[in-house]
């Protein structure tokens, strides 16, 4: 029964993607079942080459209240962006 199955978060890496991307969540009894469910629910349209699943409860998340102290201080520090360099055309993914 659903209420007994824990929630998992699913991350899929696309065919030529560089990293796993969070695509959604699902219920499963354990890790093995979560992987098969993720395969069936989130890679049906030929999206992925690799799947990660993790129990939702194992994810520590920042909260809304922390939004300003966490993220606002970086908003005015333009010098942290590498915009002052010429980036060669053949260097992708910067």
């Amino acid at each position, binding site marked *: 029964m*659903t209420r007994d*199955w824990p929630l998992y978060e699913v991350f*899929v890496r*696309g*065919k*030529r*993607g*560089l*990293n796993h*991307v*969070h*695509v959604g969540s*699902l*219920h*499963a*009894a354990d890790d*093995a*079942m979560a992987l*098969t*469910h993720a*395969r*069936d*629910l989130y890679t*049906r*349209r*030929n*999206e*992925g080459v690799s799947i990660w699943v993790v129990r939702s409860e194992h994810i520590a998340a920042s909260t809304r209240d922390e939004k300003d102290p966490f993220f606002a201080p970086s908003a005015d520090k333009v010098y942290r962006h590498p915009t002052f360099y010429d980036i060669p055309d053949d260097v992708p*993914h910067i």
Partner: protein
Amino acid sequence: MSDDHVYLSLAEGHDDSDARWAFGTGFEDPLHGVDQTVPEGTDSAQLAAYCLALGDDALVSAQRLAQWCTAAPELEEEVALANIGLDLLGQTRLLYARAGQVDGTGRGEDAYAYFRDAEDFRNVRLAELPDGDFAFAVTRLLVLSSWRLALFERLATTASDPVLAAIAAKGVKELAYHRQYAAEWVVRLGDGTEESQRRTRDALAAIAPYVDELFADDGELRIEVLAVLRQVTDAAGLVLPEVAPVPGHGRDGDRTEHLAPLLAELQSVARADPEATW
């Protein structure tokens, strides 16, 4: 990866020409580059009948799996069973198309699926038995996918018809997953609660009389498939009972009473309006 939209990032790097797909491009035609002419020395009638029989197995199985839609114990399982059904439906379409090419009638896949009656079907009878419960569904799936996988692995390398070999090669990857999915569930149920174990044991008992029919007289195939099944049932703490097979043979046109109602539902729309296109 600057874009944090899920599917845009997944689609990144795909061909621009396929831009109309939001994601998941790069589809492959399983018959691309395969010579469609029937090789010399092949008995066309026999090849067509064989493709048809393998197609019937898959069509009837797909319909049974589709019947779990809105009825599966979990949403995730419902999608899984429907996915597996769609894989099998894809195999059906390729096999029917090949049968129509080879038997010289040029019939399309719809003619075989929708406009034949139960007595014209040649599927193994295990495929048409109704699903009592989820345990039966996954146990039957385990038996059928283990058998079909062994068969397709063989056909992929030894079939004299290159099209049938290509269809089998495509099917092998799908069937390997079907078997894994079903095996995980049979072990889980057999090794689960008292009730799940009882239901899975009952499923094996109901399936056992129909197992013999899968192998016809192919002793090698029987040994290979039964060894796989035993591995799973051992892990599940269960046994596939050795019982007398039911008389008759699905490949010869012997049917249970369950196929006709299944086909009535499957064919109702197409027969109500035979001119309809979709």
